[in-house]
């Protein structure tokens, strides 16, 4: 079979896993990695699951590898932090069946809280890294990673970036090769990482990396393209494409494996070019190593450490060439916002009215931090809302946080929030946690989780009851409130924040974009009743706009009839009708 198909980078990685004979895949959704699992699930030959967090996903993949099958865990860059505990140690253990971790970085922060470089994590964890530069390579390198994993007894990392993960390119499809399961044999010195064993494995890890570094110079994925030798560029991944676009005549050493580096190959390349540049997004990982070998190379002194690169940027920095274009117009910014009908907006409108500060978390609801809602004061990482609130209370006393709540989504709560809540109960805290339960993982595009009652494969399963869970860990006061009942919500929040105890409010309403939640209603305005007070505009619904005469208009193509504006109108000037 040799069919060609246009595929997302993530779809190509899923295809690579399929063709490589992978049998187990685990992940937690996170942009830009989510579509890997969403595509893997289409292959019946692979068992695929959503885990509650990346650490669990990583350990599931490790277990599968230990049992002798090829397995994969995929996650976004900050997910690698969550999974770093098992990652650092599985590096010592190595593999039985091939084990690949996909780490999806986000230079330019399209949908992330930081811009960290997973290659650095891999380097410290002593895990080799492959970095594809287009969809075809995303598939090919994934397959190769499984081979290298088994050949060198090491977990392998595939490092992608948003631009690769979410770009589509032409891919040649191949058939799946079934790989026979490796036999399982008890091997405590390799698989039980206690001090006596780990000491020996550390020696092995150092030798493994040295051997791979030596072999790297003859690996086909590290390839030299000699042309004009006035300019030589060492690059990898998506930046390779920018180099080809900007400097089509330059000599290029394209690294398919970015850790460990092929020193011999790099030294040879460096000796043949007049000026050597190193083009890598984010950290100067390649640059600093190359320079440490006494090779003169130009990198971050002319190229930024932040954000994405482009061909224009390289032309400007290396060739001093300006690309001519019209000046950009000064136009109003259009930052992302909560959707019309989003239940988070309803909760935030109540908190805003009560002048309550929110310790925030990771999800669509982070958008509650910006105008006009301005409810969320802090955002760190998954699960941090609850523990940061707890820290504030312990630092300043319970009265200090009476006008604070922690805000966390249902999926995020199950990811790592629940640990923080256990900690609050255990340490006799005071504080209110609002779980924004929209029955899905919203921001990444609607993935199921342990409380939705459905698996990644779509099969019905047990749904964790959030009320029971909170009670079981010792939270006495748990209130469930429909997210759009603003009166009840207001009353509940006032009551719970006043309480000297840990309390949880579960604000329930499904995400407005869920296909099962397509509204049959819409809201309309009755202009004759409108007193132009602007109360309906306060929560910042994009479907409502103020007209020149001061009355408001609701865009019926955007409105989904949530009725929040109607509840806020004191003059009955908004009505809910059937679409």
């Amino acid at each position: 079979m040799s069919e060609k198909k246009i595929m997302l980078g993530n779809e190509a990685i899923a295809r690579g896993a399929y063709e490589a004979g992978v049998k187990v895949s685990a992940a937690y959704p996170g942009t830009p990695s989510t579509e890997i699992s969403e595509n893997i699930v289409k292959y019946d030959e692979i068992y695929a699951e959503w885990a509650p967090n990346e650490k669990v996903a990583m350990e599931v993949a490790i277990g599968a590898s230990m049992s002798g099958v090829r397995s994969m865990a995929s996650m976004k860059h900050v997910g690698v932090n969550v999974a770093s505990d098992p990652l650092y140690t599985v590096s010592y253990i190595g593999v039985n069946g091939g084990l690949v971790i996909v780490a999806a970085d986000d230079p330019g922060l399209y949908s992330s809280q930081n811009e960290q470089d997973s290659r650095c994590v891999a380097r410290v964890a002593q895990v080799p890294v492959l970095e594809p530069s287009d969809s075809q390579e995303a598939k090919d390198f994934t397959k190769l990673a499984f081979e290298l994993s088994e050949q060198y007894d090491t977990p392998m990392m595939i490092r992608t970036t948003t631009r690769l993960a979410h770009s589509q390119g032409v891919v040649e499809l191949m058939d799946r090769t079934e790989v026979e399961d490796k036999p399982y044999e008890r091997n405590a010195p390799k698989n039980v990482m206690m001090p006596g064993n780990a000491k020996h494995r550390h020696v092995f890890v150092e030798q493994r990396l040295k051997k791979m570094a030596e072999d790297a110079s003859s690996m086909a994925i590290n390839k030299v393209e000699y042309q004009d030798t006035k300019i030589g560029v060492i690059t990898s991944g998506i930046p390779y494409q920018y180099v080809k676009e900007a400097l089509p005549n330059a000599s290029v050493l394209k690294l398919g494996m970015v850790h460990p580096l092929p020193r011999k190959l790099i030294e040879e390349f460096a000796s043949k070019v007049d000026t050597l540049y190193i083009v890598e997004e984010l950290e100067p990982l390649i640059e600093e190593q190359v320079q440490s070998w006494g090779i003169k190379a130009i990198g971050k002194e002319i190229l930024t450490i932040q954000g994405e690169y482009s061909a224009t940027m390289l032309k400007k920095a290396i060739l001093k060439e300006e690309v001519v274009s019209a000046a950009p117009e000064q136009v109003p910014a259009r930052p992302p916002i909560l959707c019309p009908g989003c239940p988070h907006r309803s909760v935030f409108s109540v908190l805003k009215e009560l002048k309550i500060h929110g310790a925030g978390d990771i999800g669509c609801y982070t958008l509650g931090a910006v105008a006009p809602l301005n409810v969320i004061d802090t955002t760190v990482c998954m699960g941090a809302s609850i523990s940061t609130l707890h820290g504030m209370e312990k630092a300043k006393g319970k009265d200090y946080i009476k006008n604070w709540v922690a805000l966390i989504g249902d999926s995020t709560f199950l990811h790592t929030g629940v640990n923080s809540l256990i900690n609050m109960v255990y340490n006799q805290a005071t504080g209110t946690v609002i779980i924004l339960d929209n029955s899905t993982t919203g921001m990444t595009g609607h993935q199921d989780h342990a409380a939705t009652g459905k698996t990644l494969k779509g099969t019905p399963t047990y749904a964790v009851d959030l009320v029971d869970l909170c009670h079981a860990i010792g939270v006495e006061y748990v209130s469930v409130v429909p997210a759009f009942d603003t009166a009840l919500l207001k009353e509940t929040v006032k009551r719970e924040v006043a309480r000297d105890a840990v309390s949880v409010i579960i604000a329930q309403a499904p995400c407005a974009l869920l296909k099962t939640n397509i509204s049959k209603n819409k809201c309309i305005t009755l202009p004759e009743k409108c007193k132009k007070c602007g109360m309906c505009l306060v929560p910042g619904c994009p479907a409502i706009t103020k007209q020149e005469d001061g009355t408001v208009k609701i865009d019926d193509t955007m409105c989904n009839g949530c009725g929040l504006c109607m509840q806020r109108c004191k003059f009955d000037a908004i009505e809910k009708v059937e679409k």
Partner: protein
Amino acid sequence: MEQTKSIMIVGVGGQGTLITSRILGGITTAAGYDVKLSEVHGMAQRGGSVVTFVRYGEKVAEPIVEEGCADVLIAFERLEALRYAHFLKKDGVIIVNDQRIDPMTVVTGACIYPEGIIEKLSAAYKVVRVDAMEEAKKLGNSRVFNTIIIGVAARQMNFAKEDWLRIIEKTVPPKTVEMNKLAFEAGYAM
């Protein structure tokens, strides 16, 4: 060697720019070109300004379109057309859906929605204006306005109408095929 063509699709998150770029990806791939598309997923999609790049040619390296390099700009909203117009080449074409969606900065009163956008753009570029939402409502389904825009854009490109229809059939959800084909025809006839 034929020059690589660069198309940008811009709009407001949730307007359906992704399916449009996929249809463009489909038709250019079917025509035997090397193709790269670059999309925006995740948080940026939520009502924010979104950009999708489509590049096709004999061999495409860079997956993004840069300032001053686009041949065609397809804008699903007129403020977004203005925001990205400088990405066009001097003789570039803009297909603009004449719809206004206020960004939150305008809703809150922090900024003013600019007037006279279409006129301003027409002074510098070849502009094809379409009120796709109005046309879609005439067809009885406001959701297919993006396919109407594709129909309009198709007239500016050199692919056969039958090929477009075939790709649309392959790309859109099965239940919506007929409606989308109608919408394409409506746009193509404009």
